[in-house]
């Protein structure tokens, strides 16, 4: 049987999700063709505004041409489909391409509604939907001082944020008496308005724009129906969306009275070979303008198309969707749940206002006070997850409704009844549609931390809003399994690394015996000894070979070099920022030649010298130290390298001196011991040649200062770093890195990289920002002092060691002979040495006669 041909018109988020879900398991059964009207494949429209704060089009992309090619998906970009011929089952594009289909999926999305205001079709007047729109708005901003957004809804406030990011004096003009009229009530709208005004955005409500004419002080003047006016240089319309149903009209499909393609629960239109999904579709006379319902429709269509073979045979139909939303607008948390306006007959309303903290909460409960029906939250949306579950699952309240609104007293649980009250079907992650049951199954299957849960269920990887709830489900399920959340370091210490760190810090413990007698048992092992040595170093910074510490060090720290598979070592001198003089380069080359070392350039812009034997290490390092080179700590759980580009020194694109900054940073943090290795990089412009976004700390120059990224990772689990702060100056940059680095040192698990550490922080990036920028925990002074202590007590470990005859005794292969290890054998590969001792597969069993 030949493959069924599926044509997907529209490659937005929903169209792509459909393709993704279908191609995942059924690429052999279907030939998939998709048409995109825009110049690129699907990208994350929800995150559109982040385009101005560091995310590139590539960052926002949900797929790539390569990925589609690999899945065998045929795609056409810049190709708008303009007509549909149901009789012949073909669609035709604007450029005249005609293609047949077996099944057609309309995912044409929506278009921004622009009211018929005279003067709307002029330059510097925009809508806010595509990356092209954003490029054009940015262009306008270059010649503008004032910008106005028409429309104070969710998207309008996003657009206002964007104008503000672009440096414009920003105004929002709203027709209704309050902001976000759909989601908020008067109280919530008023609080949001005051908060946004504090941020410098002027809000005008009850303004009906009559016309846009030439301005006197600005490019335009907007005249309002009430006789008032506003002058502005740039205008962005955000007055709602309309379903893009033009194509459906050409094919004479059934539409709603006010537009939208009518669909049933399978997302089928009245033509049973045609599905419609996303914002162009009309279900039960409703359009769903959020991403979660769009994804749900895509799944329903895949389920029906594959005759229920997808999703493990589960019946997945579209049964409407909850339109609750939670978001952060201009830094203000806003959420709306269920029946936010109290439209249910006899519903009762309670509200709570804390004007000093800027918090507004309202709940709508059933007439018998037993069920939560809806809510509005402004200023603090931390209750969102819990309350949404109460509404969606119709969970009976365990206390009087007003208890929900009051801050928790004496640690009593709030009226929600906790995570255990949620039924298994409760949807925890609405973006990816992951239920409590899915999460519990994954935990049972071994995914027992947040990072693993995210990667195997997808939960928390959409908007991230459900992560706190996800954490609660995880912990509850671990409890159920009888896995007390066991953070013990090893069998000798029942404490977590973080707890041990605090004990060592507070009790000023400086050696292992003292730590064991304080809180451990037995005599230590290969896990707790290096971990303790690492914590002692992070706090007290004594030399790693001090008498009391030497027995705790892993061999790499112990001999200040990296042991390779044949027992020889590699040597990495520090080359700060990757900058090296020809003299040092020659010296390194001469040493390598003299001691016959294999040389290789590392990924971190350094030079690695392999094949040195124990007795050679001090001799080599004497030469290096005498010439002014220092240890590179390639052997330590510590800062490795700060990679850089040449920045403004040489590069015609550079906007800051990235090399100097990299050297400054590398020298500042060299030798600081941390739970795992730490990598950094500094790029001199947005071209990002130093690949800073794959580092634990990435710094990218802007024309105003630096953007700081955190928690990136290459290696086995690559992760793009998150933008932590934008356009900060040198001092702020160092201050933030000091605090984040030390907070990581203090709170991470053993051998936990910053990426996993941050993903496991409850509250993630936002929490980290709160700790670092707002000093939420009031520990920043302490962390800064601690870092300063480490900086002040830095020593080149090799310099100290080569001057200590007692320590040097250990740098010989034999304690009782000057002979060398005869099992170190090299062969020649491409003109350099390579280990030649074999790794025996059948392990030799030798048992000496005693």
């Amino acid at each position: 049987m030949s493959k069924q041909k599926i044509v997907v018109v529209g490659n937005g988020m929903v169209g792509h999700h459909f393709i993704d879900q279908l191609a995942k398991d059924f690429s052999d059964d279907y030939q998939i063709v998709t048409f995109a009207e825009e110049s690129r494949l699907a990208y994350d429209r929800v995150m559109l505004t982040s385009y101005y704060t560091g995310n590139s089009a590539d960052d926002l992309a949900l797929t790539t041409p390569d990925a589609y090619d690999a899945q065998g998906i045929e795609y056409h970009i810049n190709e708008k489909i303009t007509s549909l011929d149901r009789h012949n089952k073909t669609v035709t594009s604007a450029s005249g391409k005609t293609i047949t289909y077996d099944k057609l999926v309309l995912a044409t999305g929506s278009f921004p509604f622009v009211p018929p205001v005279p003067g709307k079709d002029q330059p510097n007047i925009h809508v806010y939907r595509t990356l092209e729109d954003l490029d054009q708005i940015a262009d306008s901003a270059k010649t503008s001082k004032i910008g106005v957004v028409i429309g104070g809804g969710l998207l309008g406030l996003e657009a206002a944020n964007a104008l503000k990011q672009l440096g414009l004096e920003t105004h929002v003009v709203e027709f209704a008496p309050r902001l976000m009229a759909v989601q908020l009530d008067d109280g919530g709208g008023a609080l949001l308005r005051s908060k946004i005004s504090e941020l410098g955005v002027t809000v005008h409500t009850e303004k009906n724009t009559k016309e846009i004419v030439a301005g006197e002080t600005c490019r335009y003047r907007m005249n309002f129906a009430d006789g008032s006016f506003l002058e502005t240089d740039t205008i962005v319309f955000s007055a709602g969306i309309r379903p893009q149903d033009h194509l459906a009209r050409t094919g004479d499909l059934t539409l709603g009275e006010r537009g939208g393609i009518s669909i049933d629960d399978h997302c089928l239109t009245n033509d049973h070979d045609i599905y419609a999904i996303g914002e162009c579709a009309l279900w039960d006379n409703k359009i769903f303008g959020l991403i979660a319902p769009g994804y749900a429709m895509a799944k329903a269509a895949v389920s029906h198309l594959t005759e229920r073979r997808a999703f493990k045979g589960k019946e997945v139909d579209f049964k409407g969707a909850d339109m609750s939303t939670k978001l952060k607008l201009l830094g203000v948390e806003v959420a709306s749940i269920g029946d936010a306006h109290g439209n249910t007959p006899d519903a009762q309303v309670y509200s709570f206002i804390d004007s000093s903290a800027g918090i507004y909460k309202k709940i709508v409960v059933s007439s018998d006070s037993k069920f939560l029906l809806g809510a509005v939250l402004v200023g603090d949306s931390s209750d969102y997850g819990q309350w949404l579950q109460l509404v969606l699952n119709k969970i009976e309240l365990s206390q009087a409704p007003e208890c929900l609104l009051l801050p928790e007293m004496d640690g009593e649980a709030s009226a929600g009844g906790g995570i255990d009250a949620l039924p298994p079907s409760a949807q925890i992650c609405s973006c990816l549609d992951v239920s409590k049951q899915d999460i519990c199954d994954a935990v049972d299957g071994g995914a027992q931390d947040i990072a693993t849960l995210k990667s195997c269920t997808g939960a928390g990887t959409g908007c991230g809003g459900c992560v706190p709830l996800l954490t609660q489900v995880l912990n509850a399920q671990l409890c159920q399994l009888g896995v007390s959340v066991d953070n013990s370091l090893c069998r000798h210490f029942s404490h977590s690394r973080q707890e041990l760190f605090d004990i060592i810090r507070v009790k000023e413990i400086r050696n292992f015996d003292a730590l064991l007698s304080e809180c451990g048992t037995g005599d230590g092992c290969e896990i707790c000894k290096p971990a303790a040595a690492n914590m002692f170093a992070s706090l007290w910074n004594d030399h790693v070979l001090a008498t009391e510490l030497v027995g705790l060090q892993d061999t790499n720290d112990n001999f200040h070099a990296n042991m390779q598979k044949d027992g020889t070592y590699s040597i990495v001198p520090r080359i700060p920022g990757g900058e090296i003089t020809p003299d040092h380069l020659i010296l390194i080359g001469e040493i390598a030649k003299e001691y016959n070392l294999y040389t290789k350039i590392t990924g971190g812009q350094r030079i690695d010298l392999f094949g040195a034997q124990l007795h050679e290490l001090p001799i080599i390092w004497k030469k290096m130290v005498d010439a002014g080179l220092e240890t590179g700590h390639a052997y330590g759980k510590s800062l490795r390298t700060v990679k850089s580009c040449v920045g403004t020194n040489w590069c015609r694109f550079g906007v800051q001196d990235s090399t100097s900054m990299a050297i400054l940073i590398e020298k500042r943090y060299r030798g600081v011991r941390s739970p795992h290795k730490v990598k950094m990089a500094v790029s001199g412009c947005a071209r990002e040649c130093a690949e800073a976004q794959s580092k634990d700390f990435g710094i990218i120059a802007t024309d105003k200062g630096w953007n700081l990224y955190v928690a990136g990772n290459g290696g086995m689990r690559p992760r793009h770093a998150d933008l932590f702060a934008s356009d900060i100056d040198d001092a702020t940059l160092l201050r933030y890195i000091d605090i984040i680095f030390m907070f990581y040192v203090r709170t991470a698990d053993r051998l936990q990289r910053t990426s996993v550490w941050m993903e496991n922080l409850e509250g993630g990036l936002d929490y980290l920002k709160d700790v670092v920028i707002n000093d939420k925990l009031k520990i920043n002074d302490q962390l800064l002092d601690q870092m300063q202590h480490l900086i002040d007590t830095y020593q080149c470990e090799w310099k100290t060691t080569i001057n200590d005859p007692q320590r040097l005794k250990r740098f010989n292969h034999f304690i009782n002979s000057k002979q060398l290890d005869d099992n170190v054998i090299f062969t020649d590969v491409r003109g350099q040495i390579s280990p030649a001792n074999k790794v025996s597969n059948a392990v030799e069993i030798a048992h000496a006669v005693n």
Partner: protein
Amino acid sequence: MNTVAEQQTWLDICALNDIPPNTGVCAQFNGQQVAIFHLSSSKLGNVSLVKAVSNLDPFSDANVLSRGLISENDDIYYVASPLLKQLFNLDTGLCATDENVSIATYHVRVSDGLVQLRRS
């Protein structure tokens, strides 16, 4: 008590002080490489104990065990290979993570501050 016979039986290797507590060294002994460990902790009553096993890590075919960490579990002392962390019992030479593998052990003692290995 150091009779001539004893001197012939036990070979001096190094001073105990040459082995920092809770570390190891490698000795050349009858053409073999022997890893000698110096154990000392409060748990052991701050008395110095010495243990000796082959220096060859059978999993990697590299002479490195003297540079491994000493690890205790249920009062038994092991050395963890510095390469891939397999544990070897310092008294029996048995590998704790692979019962088919073991390494040679040697008689070792401290006499007058000197570490000695017994010839055969």
